[in-house]
């Protein structure tokens, strides 16, 4: 250690000498001399020249005014970044780099597309085209009425055909598929009162039972082409939502019954149902799905409101009734029931 120290030679001989030889107080004195100047300086600093300061600020502010210039420059830098003609660089990438990027992204996204295609393919391998994998969400059928034009409020004036003509057109259109001739040609007349079960492979085409327009009698539009709207006795058709595999309880077909939902029960004095049983015959069940049960015709129940209070809105609730039918789900007003208002003006 000693040798090392010696070999290092006194590096700052005169300097160190002075400090060391002076005694402490003198060093202090020396130092104070410097400090003095600094301290004076510090004092002045403590009182910055405020006026000058303000002037400067004003200068700065006035300099700051041609802001447009700065913006312009920024924009130019931006444009240069987008496309630098000198170096032939765009977005800080050269052409070669860009082609590499395009190539890699093309490759990457093509692979991703392949992956998602493969996944979809595998998904479809697990799904039967004839039978949904799960049906628990539509276990109990919903109910819908016709005519339906965006609204469940039937407002019309008997004496003004314009107000009800669209219901008639809508119904006529809807019932085209129920024309007797068509039904007889396409579908079979199967025995009523029992399920129309067709065993056999899933992929075999299934036959459908006839539901003829004429079953609807007065509401078929055949006798009364205005479906009663012209007389203030509107026909409304009720249709149960199709559910693959749905079978009503055996021997007890689903019935329809309508009444005033809220208010005076007597607002509706009489309703005629067609078919008169006011029910969906068992022979229309089960439904085998769109793919094989091509000509399936949803059974209908027509409600003929022959005597309803006029000139006031009557809320009507039509419910399905039968074993296993749920018609009182609070959150869903269309499961097993349908609510609509009739407001017939004269």
């Amino acid at each position, binding site marked *: 250690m000693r040798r090392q120290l010696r070999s290092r030679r*006194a590096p700052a001989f005169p300097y160190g*000498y002075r400090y060391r030889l002076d*005694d*402490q107080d003198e060093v202090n004195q020396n130092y104070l001399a410097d400090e*003095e100047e*600094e301290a004076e300086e510090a*004092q002045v600093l403590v009182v910055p020249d405020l006026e000058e300061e303000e002037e400067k600020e004003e200068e700065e502010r006035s300099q700051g005014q041609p802001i447009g210039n700065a913006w312009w420059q920024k924009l130019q830098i931006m444009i240069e970044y987008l496309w630098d003609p000198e170096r032939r660089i765009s977005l800080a990438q050269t052409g070669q780099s860009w082609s590499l990027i395009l190539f890699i992204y093309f490759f990457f996204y093509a692979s991703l597309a392949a992956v998602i295609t493969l996944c979809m393919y595998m998904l479809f391998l697990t799904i039967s085209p004839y039978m949904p994998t799960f049906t628990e969400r539509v276990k109990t059928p919903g109910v819908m009425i016709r005519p339906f034009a965006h609204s469940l409020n039937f407002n019309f004036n008997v004496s003004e055909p314009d107000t009800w003509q669209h219901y008639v057109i809508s119904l006529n259109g809807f019932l085209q598929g129920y024309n007797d001739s068509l039904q007889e040609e396409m579908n079979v007349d199967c025995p009523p009162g029992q399920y129309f079960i067709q065993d056999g492979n899933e992929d075999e085409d299934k036959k459908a039972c006839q539901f003829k327009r004429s079953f609807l009698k007065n509401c078929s539009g055949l006798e009364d082409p205005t479906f009663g709207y012209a007389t203030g006795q509107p026909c409304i058709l009720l249709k149960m*939502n199709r559910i693959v595999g749905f079978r009503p309880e055996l021997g007890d077909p689903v019935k329809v019954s309508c009444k005033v939902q809220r208010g005076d029960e007597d607002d509706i004095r009489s309703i005629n149902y067609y078919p008169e049983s006011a029910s969906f015959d068992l022979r229309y069940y089960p439904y085998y799905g769109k793919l094989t049960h091509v000509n399936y015709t949803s059974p209908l129940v027509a409600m003929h409101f022959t005597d309803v209070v006029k000139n006031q809105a009557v809320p009507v609730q039509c419910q399905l009734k039968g074993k296993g039918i749920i018609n009182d789900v609070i959150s869903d007003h*269309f*499961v097993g029931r349908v609510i609509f208002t009739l407001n017939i003006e004269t």
Partner: protein
Amino acid sequence: MSRKTLEIYSVELDGTKDTKQTDQEDDKKYNDLDLKKSHQKEELKRELDLDDHKLTSEELEQKYGTNIITGLSSARAAEHLARDGPNTLSPPKQTPEIIKFLKQMVGGFSILLWIGAVLCWIAYGIQYVNDKSASLDSVYLGVVLALVVILTGIFAYYQEAKSTNIMASFSKMIPQEALVIRDSEKKVIPAEQLVVGDIVEIKGGDQIPADIRLLSSQGCKVDNSSLTGESEPQPRSAEFTHENPLETKNIGFYSTTCLEGTATGVVINTGDRTVIGRIASLASGVGSEKTPIATEIEHFVHIVAGVAVSVGLLFFIIAVSLKYQVLDSIIFLIGIIVANVPEGLLATVTVTLSLTAKRMAKKNCLVKNLEAVETLGSTSIICSDKTGTLTQNRMAVAHLWFDNQIFMADTSENQLNQAFDQSSGTWASLSKIIALCNRAEFRPGQENIPIMKKVVVGDASETALLKFSEVILGDVMEIRKRNRKVAEIPFNSTNKFQLSIHETEDPEDKHFLVVMKGAPERILERCSTIMINGQEQPLGKSNATAFHTAYMELGGLGERVLGFCHLYLPEDEFPESYPFDVDAMNFPTSNLCFVGLLSMIDPPRSTVPDAVAKCRSAGIKVIMVTGDHPITAKAVAKSVGVISASSETVEDIARRCSIAVEQVNKRDARAAVVTGMELKDMAPEQLDEILANYSEIVFARTSPQQKLIIVEGCQRQDAVVAVTGDGVNDSPALKKADIGIAMGIAGSDAAKNAADMVLLDDNFASIVTGVEEGRLIFDNLKKTIAYTLTKNIAELCPFLIYIIVGLPLPIGTITLLFIDLGTDIIPSIALAYEKAESDIMNRKPRHKKKDRLVNHQLAIYSYLHIGLMQALGAFLVYFTVYAQQGFWPTSLINLRVRWEKDELNDVEDSYGQEWTRYQRKYLEWTGYTAFFVGIMVQQIADLIIRKTRRNSIFQQGLFRNKVIWVGIASQIIIALILSYGLGSVTALSFTMLRPQYWFVAIPHAILIWVYDEVRKLFIRRYPGSWWDKNMYY
């Protein structure tokens, strides 16, 4: 005095420039400010007229209406207190809490979410006008969005407040008291109740409680370092010695310390009107810089907000041109904004920062401002104090010279390893002189405390000698008792030596021993012999040369050198009863026997050289700024490695090559020692040049004000500057620095107030730990942000596809919030616990403007690679759910309008089944849940891949960070609770998902992991390649 320097100061010290810019629109405020400014100016002027030091005691009594003997009356004091306010520095003006709170409410993404919420309400308003029975969904959504903003705002505010509170409690730890004479009685009162005119008594160890004019003094010395930065003790007496109030000896300044002696004085200024108070209040005007992490987060917020707004507007236009209703388009816009904004991220960042702050507090770095946590990590220059930070802030014996040899003493913190040769007879004599010729004493009652930690009464050198001999010789007090002192001449500036006469410890030996120490050359003058190997020899020429060589060598090391000599008085001339008279000096003080030299230094802390080396390898320039002499400064700089062993200054080269300093090529020198004098005459450009060209710089004999100039110089180099400081005068520099580091032990309150961080142990090595933590948190924040941004695409795509392709909405806005603020929160915090990937302290500090927290690589990789893969995976789950329920993907296209029509209750699916609106809605919610689960599952993979940016996960260790697994577990548990626990709560639109759907996205999750591993592999394999440049974030 240089005019230039002055200007620099005036610009920087006057904070009104900043204030003005922000308040320009507020004219009233502006005027107030002007008023205040001139008021301030007035007051400062008055300070300069301070003439109390020139007044006599009587004049003072008259001026302050006091009595030097009896003090103020209590009533009078109370009057003054009411007039002047308490004697405390008013804390820097704080932003009112409510403003801080509101700032949290509108900062960052909050403004976007507020816009979203307001749009929701507007949309409802329009709906309501059209249809009185409009659903309240959008009102709820608006409320939820507002709640999200408010809750995250409250959270961030709470976090901020918590970290501020730590600081508040810290600064209030030591209440100060003062001994005051009032009503002719001595009373101890809290220092803040002092008023002008009070007569106070101070003694060694006290902090001076206000600016006082000394009336009497007994050997009073003060440490003015908190004012001037110079820690040499300065004598204080009642005499008026200098025109300048700052220089005269009869004024003691508030917050300086009385080192020894006692004094009585009259209080002339209190609180903010003290000199220190003025400087402190000016310092609070220096605008503090925005922290780098704040800039980074702002940058990131801009990017994300930019994406959100532009995508939102683009699709708003697309939606309108696709003939969507404007109302619907607004709702799409809200969805897009919500999907794009990582609602939970800023809260996460706050938590992450405060976790790190806690970790750093454990390592003695107390962080005042959360954002400063990261600033240390990006620091590229540290301007460090010498005393106390790099050194131990005490004197210690470093070298000894006797028997013509230099010996080295152990200067480490405990000094236990004194390895020099102690067998020589000379050492026996020398050690005796060291022990006896010393007035310092241990304070009684410290028997069980290690020697180095004992409190000593006495000055720094004597303390060092006392402890040194205590370590080597054992009980010094006992030795002194055995060698009874009969006479003593204390050190004074005319003699420049200290002498004492002792009886010898041998009762038979009736000699008296004269021991003497002092300035070496003065001691040598008084000697005629020298002791070599225990034998007295005449002091020949060769001995004198050897002495000078040794003296020079030790002086050159920047050490304080003392000479020691002794003399045994002849028994016949000085019998036992001889009356020694120190005034008459009736005993010989020349022709003594020279025994040896001893040099002392404030030794570097033992951990510092290592820490400095670490800084250097971490690319951080360590600049030493000290008030000490260049020679000492350089010596310490060399010993701690601030100037490395191999580098030379221009002067060194000049001496080595024996050429003039001017001839040296400045490029050859790596180190530079710049004194305050040189700095004063320097233009800013010259300073810039020095800062840029030398890698190792020491600023010596600088005043604390010059620190500010140095800091600015560094900042002009685009460096992130950390500054350490303890004095009040350091506070402008601390404030100006990117991160001001105050010393917890030695630091003044003003410094702590101005600083962003407080080093609880005053140790430089703690800064290095801070740097490491700061860098780690930057890396980890990158990971957190990458993790969080990724799912944005998976959240955004549903809306885009919904608008363009017309699928039933894959995921609802509320559900998105459950990802952002539910499942993703804990995992993203968990990334903060990730260990460094490697080499964190071996790389350069990040460039403030080039190495962004969120760079385009990160954004592109997160958005266009992983994010897109995630979106596909989530869509797969969604399609699976729909297909298995009856709606095949093809049937979903353009189904949106019919799907959402409330009156339409017989929508046909792919099997010909008919669905009511509610049945469809339930399926839609199931779809939301499925999509949510899909994202969640893939976010697990995302979390795992974000553990590293370059290394393979298997290199990093899959299970090393346990918190990640806690995060994953939390993700899964939250999702399970949402689906199965809250699945029946319709407002949340979650449903009970079939168990198998939870596994649909797993192959995609694995794919993400594999893809990222491949990316990292290529990065490691081909460093510097196109891939590395574009795929490494």
